[in-house]
């Protein structure tokens, strides 16, 4: 079989991404058709920058979803003779399956293209979830700090500044080590950090439906049952049903990323709360005799959503960069893992001779983060308009 030329490689890749193109086209067609009824999400389609950003982000989201269909080979499979193979190299005769390594092979003779595609799944599994947790933690602590002020604010702000004064890389080197996993510190940190999202939701429902006990009880009960089921599975790896589990090395990565991001979210939420609590509608709610948590969660928080949504997009990008940094230093992830950071780390040793194994995931990571930044920019522009 002949090696593919540049045209053949590009055509092959475009064809493999077919499910992604279909998904993108469908999403854009439906969203543009109904953009007036979709609120802030629909407004993205009024800004070119926002649309480009959303397109790039969705590209990787669909890639992660359909990774099994897109990948040409098993990301861990080794094919003899394909070590550091050039782009578009054919597989040896008589090999079943896809006949080419579209983007070449790495130094262990694995397919670079498939590893990149599978890496998208690894990254998008952790980054948005970790960011969401960081936001829940930051919001649950930032709202009371800004609203009540006083000693609570002082203590929490000091703690947040303490974490922020830590150089991130040093924190990772201290936290993400096998020795720390041995001592059980990550489980304790997870136990504390993961409790806050449950607390957040319970407070949210309780403050809203306090006057309708039936509805409140149902919502709180559902939150508690589902919350503690996930809590047991994620933090202690003790899911009674055996469905949810998190390996110890992944848990410490997740916890440290949440730990690094939460103080910044805390500061943003605290600042917004300090600003919004002087507004008239807050005074009106106070005069009505609403409780402090109702005011914080149902009056202040919805009015702070604009900057928070923008920061959420930026922060997913930042988290992706952090995860890549962890992979780059070989911290916390298994060496086999196809995630982009560790693939770059593996490829950099032979960078000047065989650039493609490191370059492909590097460009993938860059395009995802760039997409998130552009999306945030578009959202900021559109939310400032009204």
């Amino acid at each position, binding site marked *: 079989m002949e090696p593919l030329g540049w045209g053949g490689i590009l055509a092959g890749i475009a064809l493999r991404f077919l499910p992604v193109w279909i998904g993108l086209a469908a999403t854009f067609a439906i969203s543009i058709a109904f953009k007036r009824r979709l609120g802030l999400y629909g407004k993205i389609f009024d800004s070119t920058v926002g649309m480009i950003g959303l397109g790039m982000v969705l590209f990787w989201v669909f890639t992660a979803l359909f990774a099994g269909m897109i990948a040409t080979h098993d990301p861990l499979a080794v094919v003899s003779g394909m070590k550091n193979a050039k782009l578009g190299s054919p597989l040896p005769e008589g090999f079943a399956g896809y006949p080419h390594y579209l983007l070449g092979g790495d130094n262990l003779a694995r397919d670079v293209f498939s590893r990149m595609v599978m890496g998208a799944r690894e990254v998008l599994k952790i980054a948005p979830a970790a960011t969401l947790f960081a936001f829940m933690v930051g919001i649950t602590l930032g709202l009371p700090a800004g609203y009540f002020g006083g000693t609570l604010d002082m203590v929490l702000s000091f703690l947040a500044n303490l974490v922020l004064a830590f*150089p991130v890389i*040093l924190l990772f080197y201290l936290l993400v080590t096998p020795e720390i996993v041995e001592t059980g510190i990550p489980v304790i940190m997870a136990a504390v950090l993961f409790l806050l999202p449950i607390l957040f939701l319970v407070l949210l429902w309780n403050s809203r439906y306090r006057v309708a006990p039936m509805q409140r009880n149902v919502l709180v009960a559902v939150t508690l049952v589902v919350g503690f089921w996930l809590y047991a599975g994620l933090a202690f790896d003790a899911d009674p049903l055996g469905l949810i589990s998190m390996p110890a090395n992944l848990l410490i990565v997740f916890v440290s990323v949440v730990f690094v991001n939460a103080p910044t979210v805390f500061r943003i939420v605290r600042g917004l709360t300090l600003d919004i609590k002087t507004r008239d509608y807050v005074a009106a709610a106070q005069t009505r005799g609403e409780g402090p948590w109702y005011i914080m969660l149902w009056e202040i928080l919805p009015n702070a959503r604009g900057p928070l949504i923008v920061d959420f997009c930026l922060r997913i990008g930042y988290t992706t960069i952090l995860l890549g940094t962890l992979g780059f230093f070989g911290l916390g992830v298994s060496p086999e893992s196809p995630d982009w950071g560790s693939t770059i*780390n593996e490829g950099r040793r032979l*960078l000047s001779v065989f650039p493609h194994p*490191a*370059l492909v995931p590097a460009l993938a*990571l860059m395009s995802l983060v760039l997409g998130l930044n552009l999306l945030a920019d578009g959202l900021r522009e559109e939310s400032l308009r009204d």
Partner: protein
Amino acid sequence: MLKFLLRRGGTMLLTALCLTFVVFFLTNLPPNLEKLAKSEASVRMSDADVASWIERNGYGRPILVRYGEWLGVVPGWTNTEADGRLRGRCVDRAPVPAEAPAYCGLLQGYWGFSTFFKAPVGDKLGYHLGLTGILMFWVMMLMVPASLLIGVLAGMREGSRTDRVLSTFSITTTATPEYVSGVVFIVFLASPAGFQLFKGSAASAMDGPTFENFFLPVLTIALYGIGYIARMTRASMTEVMTAQYIRTARLKGLSFGAIVLRHALRNALIAPFTVIMLQFPWLLNGVVIVETLFNYKGFGWTLVQAAGNNDIELLLACSVVAVFVVLVTQLISDVGYVFLNPRIRIA
């Protein structure tokens, strides 16, 4: 002002103590000490031997006492071996054991002994910090003028073509972490696959930095910061350009150049100053990545080696330096902000 400085100083000291204690605690966990015992004495030690080694070498004392020892506010441990030899934290390095000082810690200028370098931490850290100092100097020389220029050019005419091109450039650089841009630069500018203009390794720059071996690491660190600072400068510049006094200057008939240089620039540069200062902690990150990527044996490389080789005292020293840099830049940014902006006065 004095009261503000005192309060800031107090908070800083408390923060520094808390942070170093956290680092001390995390580096001195039982598994780390076990590993240290096995690497220092013998790999094939039994658990009982490990426990006795830890006890004999002063690692068995309570963590707070040992933190005090390390700081130099608690007398160092002493021990009489089975053969009657006196040993101890301060005794081991004193020429005459009997005359050893009681205290030897950070306050006495003793940073500990590095098991990785097989030399006192203080001697080695200075050399490697110096190398990073050179790197940071050139990063600043490239980053600050470039980012301010881009920000001011983009912000003086909001929405123009220049603005859009420069803003896209800044967004792209903020989306490119150092380990990505470094890889891209090496592939395209320093390997046979692209143009071989530079060297892909900065190892030779440790003896004599030249444009050829030093530009890529400097550019890689600076690039990430450039985008961020430029965006802040642009935001602050566009805000200033819509202010009343700029309109007045325009109505007076001043030229556009004079308005930008004399009226807008000074006010627009207050916000970026804070950002540049607060960028230091992130630059520290960049330093670690770039020094690993380009094989430049500076501070970041030392930190990676200390962490990777379980060199407790070296890692502690690195953290002290890192924490010091972060806290001092925070202070400078606060104080500088007050000086630059006469409208803000601190009670």
